[in-house]
């Protein structure tokens, strides 16, 4: 069984096509190159602003590395095709924006239930509905978490710069492959269209993970079992004579549907949750600045993290003891660390480009005696250093 993109000659090909060095590119392009370096060889998507340059870059670059670009009839077809491709051993990605992300939700749940590794990039734009199609926002924080129905875990990562988008896309693939689960990249329209310098590494510098495949016939017969105790079953790929049955309905370890037995549903859904909970080390990632002696903490994610850092640096120059916490994996939320940090500060500020979403996650982990305040801006213009600095000064 093979995972395409894993061949040794791929390294030489990547090195030749994308000479290591510094490039000037857009966030959307960085996502696409990150995917190609991560081994993505299947892209199915539907054009939508501000994510379209990801599709355009993939359409141009994928054939060069032997990968497939498909423009499907809609977003639902796109994620469906990716899941089909993933079961044949292709690493698959799609990119979309708010409305398209909404359309994909049912099949995100299908990917969770069937434990199919795929990567979905949501380049967030203003909403609800068509909103501001060309503007950025951070309004899909909870759509990523709770968009699909039922009890389900989800992993979502969120890059803070163009170069970070390259690396976070690679990390999203690695998490998806290691945990056999869909992973969301919560990007945004502002970084998507920002051009910055990024360093394209030598392909050997990039750590790439491939899904666990069954070691023997017995493991292949239990595509939804837990033979290694880590909650992650090996994935028997289609086309290898295993007669694998895959269904989004509640199923037993052998894949066959049993939608009547309470215990079967309980066992399956709890294991899917446990596999994410137990493997925190695979996905948990955050950055901290000046948190050691901070009396005030700024918690910010994605596009808002950089003006937040700018504001923290300026405030430090003014002698204000303020720190910054940036979750890079936003779901599952790094609540334990927030709880620890929350014990030592008197105020927490949460700048984000929405009317208050991640702040609700922060709230769950801090005591009432901590002053918690959102810095919220909507309408497609990013938060500025001054706006955040003003709020920091305000709580001093």
């Amino acid at each position: 069984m093979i995972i395409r993109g894993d061949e040794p000659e791929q390294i030489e090909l990547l090195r030749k096509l994308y000479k290591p060095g510094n490039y000037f590119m857009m966030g959307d392009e960085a996502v696409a190159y990150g995917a190609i370096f991560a081994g993505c060889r299947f892209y199915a998507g539907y054009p939508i602003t501000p994510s379209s340059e990801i599709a355009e870059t993939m359409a141009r670059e994928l054939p060069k590395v032997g990968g497939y670009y498909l423009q499907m009839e809609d977003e639902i077809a796109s994620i469906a095709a990716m899941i089909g491709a993933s079961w044949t051993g292709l690493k698959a990605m799609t990119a979309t924006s708010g409305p398209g992300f909404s359309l994909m939700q049912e099949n995100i749940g299908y990917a969770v239930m069937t434990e199919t590794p795929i990567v979905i990039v949501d380049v967030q734009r203003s909403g609800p509905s068509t909103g501001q199609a060309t503007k950025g926002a951070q309004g899909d924080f909870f759509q990523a978490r709770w968009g699909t129905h039922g009890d389900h875990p989800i992993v979502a990562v969120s890059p803070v710069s163009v170069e970070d988008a390259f690396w976070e896309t690679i990390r999203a693939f690695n998490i998806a492959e290691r945990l056999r689960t869909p992973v969301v990249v919560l990007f945004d329209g502002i970084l998507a269209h920002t051009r910055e310098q990024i360093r394209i590494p030598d392909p050997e510098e990039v750590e790439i993970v491939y899904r666990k495949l069954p070691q023997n016939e017995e493991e292949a017969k239990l595509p939804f079992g837990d033979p290694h105790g880590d909650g992650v079953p090996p994935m028997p790929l289609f086309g290898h004579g295993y007669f694998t049955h895959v269904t989004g309905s509640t199923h037993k370890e052998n894949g066959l549907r049993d939608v009547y037995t309470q215990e079967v549903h309980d066992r399956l859904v709890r294991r899917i949750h446990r596999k994410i909970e137990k493997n925190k080390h695979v996905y948990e990632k955050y950055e901290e600045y000046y948190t050691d002696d901070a009396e005030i903490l700024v918690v910010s994610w994605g596009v808002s993290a950089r003006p937040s850092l700018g504001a923290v640096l300026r405030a430090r120059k003014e002698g204000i003891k303020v720190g910054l916490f940036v979750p890079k994996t936003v779901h599952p939320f790094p609540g334990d660390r927030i709880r620890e940090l929350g014990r030592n500060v008197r105020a927490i500020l949460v700048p984000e480009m929405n009317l208050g979403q991640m702040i609700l996650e922060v709230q769950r982990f801090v005591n009432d005696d901590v002053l918690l305040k959102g810095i919220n801006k909507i309408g497609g213009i990013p938060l500025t250093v001054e706006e955040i600095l003003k709020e920091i000064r305000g709580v001093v």
Partner: protein
Amino acid sequence: MPEIYSKYPMVKYLRKEALPTALCPGCGGGTVLNAFANAIDQLKIDPRDIVVVSGIGCSAWIASPYFLADTLHTTHGRAIAFATGVKVGLPNKYVVVISGDGDLASIGGNHLLHAARRNVDITVILVNNFIYGMTGGQVAPTTPFGAITTTTPYRNIEHPLKIAETVAAAGASYVARWTTAHVYQLIESIKKALTTKGFSLVEVISQCPVQFGRRNKMKEPAEMLRWFLKNSIPINKAKNMSEEELEGKFVIGEFVNRRRPEFVEELNKLIRDVQSSLVR
């Protein structure tokens, strides 16, 4: 159960641990599964070379899980889109979609048209029983004008979609329509569909005595089969008939059988072209 293994040779293609099937007595689904198994048997295709994809509903269950191959039971209406991804990953395998009219032609209508337009090499067996069976017999886009269903208790005032004609117009390589009363013709068409390079559709008019027949004066499966036989018009004969004469009739036979460039082949050709231009 054991006796069926000696009695029916086609049972070797079934997933034993999933039997007996959940289909109602008299359902046309069994005939479709039997015809599909016979087509595979006659073509001597190894089931290891088949991936069957289905959506949601009674007809989606026909092959998934009962047919012993890699089977992907997907979300409602999306089977063809999933199958497109499978075919790209496994261009040398037979990728087959077996599902119902509600699944493939209603919620999944867009995917059906676009897969036909792209001419993806998948075989679609669309089981048309005029009704949403599993959810309790509601009106479908294929329900005949005037028929009674649980959501058209007075009569259906919508016109049914002509699936085979529509898919033929969308660009499929092979399209045929038969009923469950035309089993041998059906097997031949499934064989042709499987061996056609490109998108192929076999529409099977099938009986649902429980949800459709019972409410439309055809309680017994045999009554429905007699209805199919009495109202089936071969396509050559239908060509000379007026629209009024064809009202309520089932046009059967092959609608198209042609060669067009196939999507996955073209995709791989494009990749080879791009890669060889890089070498230079």
